[in-house]
């Protein structure tokens, strides 16, 4: 019989999650309802009794913290996707590679996500440190609250370029607009996004089915099509 599963999903993963949910609903007959929010907010809501079954975070820390508090089941923990970082500009000619990150760049203002709350932001800082240009960029940064704000800063031209998620600027493996440099994942800690089944949903078969589904290859194909990498089993 068909059940219902309520998913709290980090905003950056909202689009792939919609596609995943559609596919899952067709396959299983279960109903999925999505609640998007920042990872930190969703976490705060869950520890205060939010009625969610599955939590798809933007990082690994929050699902881990839930498991430690016995609010999520440890055996359900999985890495759903691994984010990729891109230096992107709305200007089609601007970004030709990492050289635009060197001092005296044509980039006037560089947008990143808030490194404190968004993993993509922390990753961007790591990249700049790796390249030894962090000191140069620090006073030239603007921070979006999350990766979606960051994207908006760049796409509206307010920031010349910014570190965004590949998933935001690529579709079917092609850049949608502007110019970009795909940041090698070796330059920053992996942007692993974990999902977990919440303790309150251990008897919810639809929720368990969704966790199962997320591990499936079908799901991975969809996730990859949004510009994420997935973990090999």
């Amino acid at each position, binding site marked *: 019989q068909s059940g219902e599963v*309520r998913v*709290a999903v980090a*905003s*950056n993963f*909202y*689009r792939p999650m*919609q596609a995943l949910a559609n596919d899952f609903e067709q396959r299983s007959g279960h109903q999925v*309802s*999505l*609640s*998007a*929010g920042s990872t930190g*907010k969703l976490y*705060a*809501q869950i520890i*205060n*009794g*939010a*009625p*969610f079954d599955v939590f798809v975070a933007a990082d690994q820390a929050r699902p881990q913290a839930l498991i430690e508090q016995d609010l999520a089941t440890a055996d359900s923990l999985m890495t759903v996707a691994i984010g990729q970082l891109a230096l992107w500009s709305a200007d089609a000619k601007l970004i030709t590679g990492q050289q635009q990150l060197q001092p005296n760049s044509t980039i006037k203002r560089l947008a990143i996500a808030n490194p404190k709350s968004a993993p993509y932001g922390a990753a961007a800082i790591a990249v700049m440190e790796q390249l030894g240009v962090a000191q140069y960029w620090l006073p030239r940064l603007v921070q979006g609250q999350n990766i*979606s704000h960051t*994207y*908006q800063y760049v796409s509206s031209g307010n920031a010349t370029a910014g570190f965004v998620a590949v998933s*935001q600027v690529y579709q079917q493996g092609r850049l949608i607009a502007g110019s970009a440099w795909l940041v090698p994942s070796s330059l920053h800690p992996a942007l692993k996004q974990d999902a977990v089944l919440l303790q309150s949903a251990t008897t919810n078969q639809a929720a368990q089915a969704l966790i199962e589904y997320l591990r499936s290859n079908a799901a991975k194909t969809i996730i990859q099509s949004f510009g994420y990498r997935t973990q090999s089993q």
Partner: protein
Amino acid sequence: MSGVDLTVVWLTLKLASVVTLLLLVIATPVAWWLSQTQSKLKPAVSAIFAIPLVLPPTVLGFYLLLLLGPNGPAGQLSAGLGLGTLPFSFAGIAIACAVHSLPFVVQPLQNAFEAIGKRPLEVAATLRASPWDTFWHVVVPMARPGFFTAIVMGFCHSIGEFGVVLMIGGNIPGETRVLSVEIYNHVEAMEYSQAHWLAGGMVAFSFVALLAIYIINHRANRRGTL
């Protein structure tokens, strides 16, 4: 607009209406007390009722979440009374929203009440109207501009309410996902054209609605006092 969006619009209007009603019920006696009292507590009470303004909505939402959640004192009380907990329910966002908009409603009412002065109350008393009667038949009609402002501000602010609702409500479709949250969802999903449509529609609708009530109010004012 899709079927989902209509639910969202409906929920938004319902929220704004419920909150406005709630606000009037709470703010009217508070504002009246503040306007009439000689008590030394007046500044303290006034300050308390202005506090929700100072806190960022998300932060306010966060603390309301802590307070009303299953571990919070208010949450334990409401659970103990068999009411369950309020966050992530329509009642929850309505209450949170009301807390956040309270100052916008208390202030204009208080100003309107104070502007009436003592004389009309005295006249009403000499015409045998009890304080309660006077309140309804003299104070309320004479404070009409204040009520009008309070209602417009309370209603509009509830429609635009976002941070508190998102925090307390949890973006749950059909229950707590209101228009502002839906626009946020579209933006997050990079569905900008939908976001533009929704936001544009919201502005257009609000403008027409506001225009209508301002025109009605304008007429009523002309008919009424100078």
